[in-house]
């Protein structure tokens, strides 16, 4: 990933509304070639809409988008020739077998008979579908269907791949499998644009993350940069009784108490020095701690902090 190399995806002021409802508001994105970009957001944030615009399915109302060097509005065919798309819901022909689905894709990419067959068998093998290849796709499990879907996307060796919530609804094992395929693809030099509702997924896979909330890109950066956006982690203390909680809460200004759970949440950056300081203050207050856990800031905190802020921004003045 070099600064000079042309970015794989660039959008400027991308906007889309359905009637009055603005679902994508002034989005500027820049995805370097060969990197993984994760668009992170809850249901209805506008992730699929973004993927649809970038993959030429839907026209934007305003703004421009360039994918693999081609304008999606003016030269959609050139964009289509460069991309592969795996939609949010698996799109395979249920009546055909796994192999037939892949052959169909090979033929549509004009790979030719011999080359097509070779590529189909190669992908069946790579996605662990060789044994199930002769069975109708209708009989596949969720994970297998997803793998077939991914294999179909890869037939044409796309340079830019869109994965819309590739692991939603998958069991943890299938999820890890998809992650492994994504990492393999990246090693092969392709650019990946994925969307997810899972913070750990973005953290695991992405070079850069964009946080999308209600059509607005509320934050953007590397996972580490995003984590730095929130004040820091915290230490969680649990007490045997209300007296302990009371004493500790008085000694530790700025902490948040939960009387029900008899617990206290103390802001801390997780360093050893800050922990030592904390313990010293607890000792001085003679507060009996039953249980202590350290929480590093994760994307969950980022997400909550950012979306809370955007929610309060939108809220009408009380």
């Amino acid at each position, binding site marked *: 990933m070099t600064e000079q190399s042309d970015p794989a995806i660039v959008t400027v002021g991308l906007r889309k509304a359905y009637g009055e409802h603005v679902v994508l508001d002034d989005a500027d994105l820049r995805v370097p070639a060969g990197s993984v970009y994760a668009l992170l957001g809850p249901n209805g944030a506008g992730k699929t809409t973004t993927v649809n615009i970038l993959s030429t399915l*839907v*026209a934007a109302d305003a703004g421009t988008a360039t994918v693999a060097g081609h304008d999606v509005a003016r030269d959609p065919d050139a964009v*289509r020739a460069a991309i592969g798309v795996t939609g949010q*819901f698996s799109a*395979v*022909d*249920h009546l055909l077998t796994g192999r037939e689905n892949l052959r169909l894709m090979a033929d*549509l990419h004009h790979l030719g008979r011999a080359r097509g067959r070779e590529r189909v068998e190669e992908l069946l093998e790579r996605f662990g579908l060789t044994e199930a290849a002769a069975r109708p796709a209708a009989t596949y499990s969720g994970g297998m269907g997803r793998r077939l879907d991914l294999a179909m996307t890869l037939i*044409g060796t796309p340079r830019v791949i869109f994965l819309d919530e590739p692991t939603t609804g998958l069991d943890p094992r299938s999820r890890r499998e998809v992650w492994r395929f994504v990492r393999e693809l990246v090693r092969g030099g392709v650019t990946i644009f994925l969307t997810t509702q899972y913070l750990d997924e973005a953290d695991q896979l992405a070079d850069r993350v964009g946080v999308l909330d209600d059509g607005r890109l509320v934050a953007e950066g590397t996972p580490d940069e995003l984590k730095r956006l929130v004040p820091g982690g915290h230490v969680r203390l649990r007490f045997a009784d209300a007296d302990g909680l009371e004493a500790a809460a008085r000694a530790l200004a700025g902490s948040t108490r939960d009387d029900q759970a008899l617990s206290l949440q103390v802001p801390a950056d997780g360093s050893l020095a800050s922990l030592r300081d904390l313990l010293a203050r607890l000792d001085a207050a003679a507060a009996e701690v039953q249980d202590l856990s350290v929480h590093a800031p994760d994307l969950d905190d980022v997400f909550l902090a950012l979306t809370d802020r955007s929610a309060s921004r939108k809220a009408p003045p009380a």
Partner: protein
Amino acid sequence: MTTIVRAATDSSTMLRRNLLRMVRYPSMTLMLVGMPIVFLLLFVYVFGATLGAGIGAGGSGTDGRTAYLGYVVPGILLMTVAAAANGTAVTVSMDMTQGLIARFKTMPIARVAVLTGHVVGNVVQSLIGVAVVLGVALLLGYRPAAGPLGWLGATGLLALIAFAMTWLSVALGLVAKNVESASNLPMPLTFLPFLGSGFVPTDSLPVGLAWFAEHQPFTPMIEGVRGLLSGTPVGSAGWLAVGWSVLISALGYLWARRLYDRRTG
């Protein structure tokens, strides 16, 4: 690859897909010919004797029934073609709801190929259905007087009509919000032969209905097929049938293309 060659290659790939689906799911084809066959049996055995006497073709009883069989087969064949088109609307709608159309749209394939694959596949399916229904009619004693040229003409006309119905049904499949409404939207096509000359001559109908029956496209289509199969003069019905088919094909095609190419999500 030139645009034309690409469109032809991709269309034939899509056609192969649809034929393969037909082989994999033969019950769909059987279901589509089932209804016309039921109507054929019903009309010939239950109403045939009376209706045969009514259309004044031969006496009553068995003679009337055989005469009515000769009269009703073209209408039943049109019904077969319409039922197959109905099946296409369902298939297209399934492709939409299962995300396959979206997948095809993001691929560098000729835009029209997805639709032509469905259309040509369905014309093949219609003709298979027509052959099956004709086979049943022959078993029942249907003996059309047509020579080779008449058969050729009837087959060609039925294929053209199937082509027209299918383009219309593809558009209906694309416009339908879900599979269920896709299966209902083209339903009137299946029943239009009743409101034409399919089952009784139009002059036996009440005035308003007779006017509609004489001017709706199915009547010349049925008359054209009937003339070609029975070896009687086709008259203006033939050209009217071809004209209607070309018009419906063109409108169905333009509508389907427009729906397919829209990028509103």
